[in-house]
């Protein structure tokens, strides 16, 4: 898994790529929570994620829950087909706010 971050349009964008599995999800979790902990609105870019397992999804869920209780914005962005299948199968696509690109972040 690779993880890069950038700031855009008032959001911190955490871009994950590759396989987000049990081995790498703790790192993804740490980064997402770090930015939310610093009161940043966070978009998680999943465009280059080839596989995400339930531990990876749990990291996203934790970010989502943290943002909700701390009145921050949190959304998934540009979700890859592989990641979207997992989210749709478990109906998590109905839980997370999902946008196509930063341009859509205004609607959050």
């Amino acid at each position, binding site marked *: 898994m690779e993880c890069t971050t950038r700031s855009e349009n008032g959001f911190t964008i955490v871009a994950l790529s590759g396989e987000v599995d049990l081995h790498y999800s703790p790192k993804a979790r740490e980064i997402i929570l770090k930015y939310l902990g610093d009161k940043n609105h966070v978009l998680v870019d999943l465009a280059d994620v080839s596989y995400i397992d*339930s*531990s990876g*999804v749990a990291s996203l*869920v934790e970010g989502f*829950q943290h943002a909700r209780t701390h009145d921050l914005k949190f959304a998934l962005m540009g979700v890859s087909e592989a990641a979207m299948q997992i989210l749709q*199968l*478990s*109906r998590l696509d*109905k839980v997370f706010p999902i946008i196509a690109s930063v341009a859509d972040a205004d609607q959050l």
Partner: protein
Amino acid sequence: MSQPATLDQLKPSDLPSPPQAALQILRACSQDDVSSTALSVLAEKDPVLTAELLRVVNTPFFGLSRKVQSLSHAVTILGQRTLRNLVLCLSVRDAIGKDAIPGLDTQIYWEDSLRRAVSAKLLAPYLKQDPDNCFTAGLLQDFGLLVLFYLRPEMALYWDELRGLDPEARLSAEQQYFAHSHTEVITLLANAWDLPEELGQALGHHHDCDNADLDQNQQSLCHILHCADWMNAVFNATDKSTVLNRTQQLLQTHCAMEEDAISACLNTLSEEMDVAARSLGLNIESQPEFEQIMREANVKLAEANLSYQELTWKLEQTLKERDALAAELEAELQLAREIQESLLPKELSDDFPITGLNVSARQLSGDFYDYFVLKDGRIYFNLADVSGKGVYAALLMAKTSSLFHCLGKHIHQPDKLLAHINNELCETAIRGMFVTMIAGIYDPKTGALKMANAGNPPALLFSPGKEVQAIEATASPLGIMPKVPFPLAPDVQLGENDCLYLFSDGATEGYLQEGAEMLGLEGLQQLIMSLHELAPKEQLQTIVEKFSAASATLHDDITIMLIEGKRPHA
């Protein structure tokens, strides 16, 4: 004194020099036809030297039966070469004054040189060399080092370090510190002092005994000097036991000495040094006995062995502790696994319509399934998967399965039951962990089945002659958002020979071949259709075996449940 950058720039006046009379005697003795009268005349030019020569000649070192009164008498008795050697020894002794090199204790230097000289003298008979000649060469062989310090007195701080090295290591260190070695310097001196070629060659090559320029005699003297150097190092070197081993090897190889002879030779050094020191008028401290050195070396060796044994012992202890902890952990995990298994439903009668199978990728599983019969004969069932793996997943699995088993006895509507479990889980949610679950009630008498699916992969309905129908999740997983609904899926009516399959994502995300793509939902559907003729338990086992055969370890827990429709005979 100016400091020459290299030896090439050295002038004879930079080098320590014996008195003029001594030099003349040395030169005269190098000629074959010098007369004893002529030598006496030369010696008498320097009365101090003459007196000293007569004193030395009359010491027990030379073992003469009667007192020698004049130099001509000494030459007659001792011979030209011995006289030359004697003059040489006294010359080097006095060439560099006691306090000429601040910070370097010349007395210790002379003790070492004397030990080399005495060693060389003791080795002489083994290689058929003249003992007196060997003694002189031994006394001179490292004089070049003293000259190096004399020329560069600021280097005196390295003296102790160099002295603690074995001869070969010291030679390299000299090159490093001075850019020259004592053998180069002694070669220069041998030329300046007109020493005979035989002696000059041996002094210059005693670290290089196999040099092609050496004749056999010179080579023998070189070997003696080389061995004598190592014998001295036995007493000085920091690593005495290693140096002793090497010295013994050298003495066996070059002097063909047996172990007993080597020990005897090393044992006698201290006594021989005392005699020679008195004779040459050198002050030396009481010299350590070889036995004392051996004891020190043995103690060091024993200490090294002891610390090695301690290390080994500690390593063994640590490994034992690790194994014990691992065994303890293994026992704890085994117990946890047994508790987990006890949470899975017991197999009921053979004609019970529900069969389940759970195989964990690790010792503990995050998947589970359950079923129990309600009072009215309907069966409550569930299949669930906790996010993540390992102990924390297993703990949440235990909690969720207890909630299902306990609440399910009172709440007979799967959608409401899931809502209750969800609210409970959300209250204690940590780390984003969630649970996917299908919960339902099946009436085996009528074949009616109601279920709700919270984020689990779809249930697959198999009816003979029809396409497999996927019944998708109706809500997101449990434990993410409180107070959300978990709607029922459309009612299912299981007919004769119909089967409903529930499974965790370990089944769709498993691999049937190492390196191949995941089986996927369609792959699982095809697999189910191909196995339909088998009995339910065999079907589930065959599916799991296919995953297990593909790789040494499962990637994820796999849980599958099969619910059979009404049987024809029922």
